[in-house]
């Protein structure tokens, strides 16, 4: 009896003492909320995507995870560029702090990110910048002693000794 069920349902809503909440407020409809849960939880398996109460908790957590690390993203990238630039300076025996300050003094406005990218993809360009800073510091006569030798020019006496000893023992 389709008609009777219609009347019963209609009377249930019309003769209610307290009105239902969703009529009063401007919340999204129940169906749309459920659709959202299904959409976000589609990648999960089993009850995580089929049950409402588990699925909605998982969905809220997933949405929270999605924006969790954006706050510290720039900070982490800055740290990475700093370590990369330090390594690049170390290859030429240059102090990173002195390098950056003297670049700023001579009005070469390059930040850490672009300098680190130069060191990876255009190492010769980076080398010219380092040589420029070294030459300028020699001309000024300040800090010239603190600039060390490039990497890979350590005295190798100990290595040669050990290799000689191992060769003599094996032969």
């Amino acid at each position: 009896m389709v008609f009777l069920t219609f009347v019963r349902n209609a009377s249930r809503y019309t003769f209610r003492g307290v009105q239902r909440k969703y009529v009063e407020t401007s919340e999204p409809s129940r169906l749309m909320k459920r659709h959202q849960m299904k959409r976000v939880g589609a990648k999960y398996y089993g009850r995580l995507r089929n049950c409402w109460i588990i699925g909605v908790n998982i969905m809220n957590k997933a949405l929270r995870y999605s924006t969790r690390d954006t706050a510290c993203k720039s900070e982490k990238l800055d740290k990475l560029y700093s370590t990369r630039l330090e390594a690049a300076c170390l290859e030429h025996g240059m102090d990173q702090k002195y390098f950056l300050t003297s670049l700023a003094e001579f009005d070469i406005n390059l930040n850490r990110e672009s300098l680190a990218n130069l060191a990876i993809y255009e190492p010769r360009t980076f080398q010219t910048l380092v040589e420029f800073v070294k030459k300028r510091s020699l001309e000024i006569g300040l800090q010239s002693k603190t600039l060390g030798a490039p990497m890979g020019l350590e005295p190798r006496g100990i290595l040669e000794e050990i290799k000689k000893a191992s060769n003599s023992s094996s032969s």
Partner: protein
Amino acid sequence: MAHNRVIQWGAMARTWWLYDAKFQCPYRSAEKLCMYLEGRHKPLYHPLSDVGDHVVVINTRYVAMAEDLWRKQQYKHDTRYAGGKSSATAWRLHEADYTKILYKAVYSAAPKNLLRPTIMRRLHLYPEEDVPDDIIGNVSDVIRQIQVVPKPLDSYSAQEIEEFPKLFDWPEDHVIYKRKATTEKKEES
């Protein structure tokens, strides 16, 4: 350019480094060794990519500790059984294994993530200067020591000690405390 792939090999190749740990602080040298093991000395470094180098450390037996850390530094161990906790001082651990202290120093200085075991596998520790040929054959460069190796007093000749500039002489009534020789006591008892 056929030359490009050679550049790629050169950039990604693992170089081998030698470090002489004679009279070096293990904790401060561990920080420096970690830089090479992680690959932080390369401009293409990334914490998730495995671009570190090999480091061969010799003379770990003659590692030097500051102050009285040989007596006071405690290395703890727990078997997770009841009464399984134990601790050993640095000098006792060093007697058991001459490479253990530097290994633990590097282990604690390394990043605490899943790359740590692979980093530790690239560290080769030797108590003396004799290194196997297949390992020393790969080494191409030396890492600079962090401390200046001190010259022991025995190595100075008597003439050099006499010629050392002296500002003043002690007065005759000045008493310098001298510890008694312990060997005599043992002979008596």
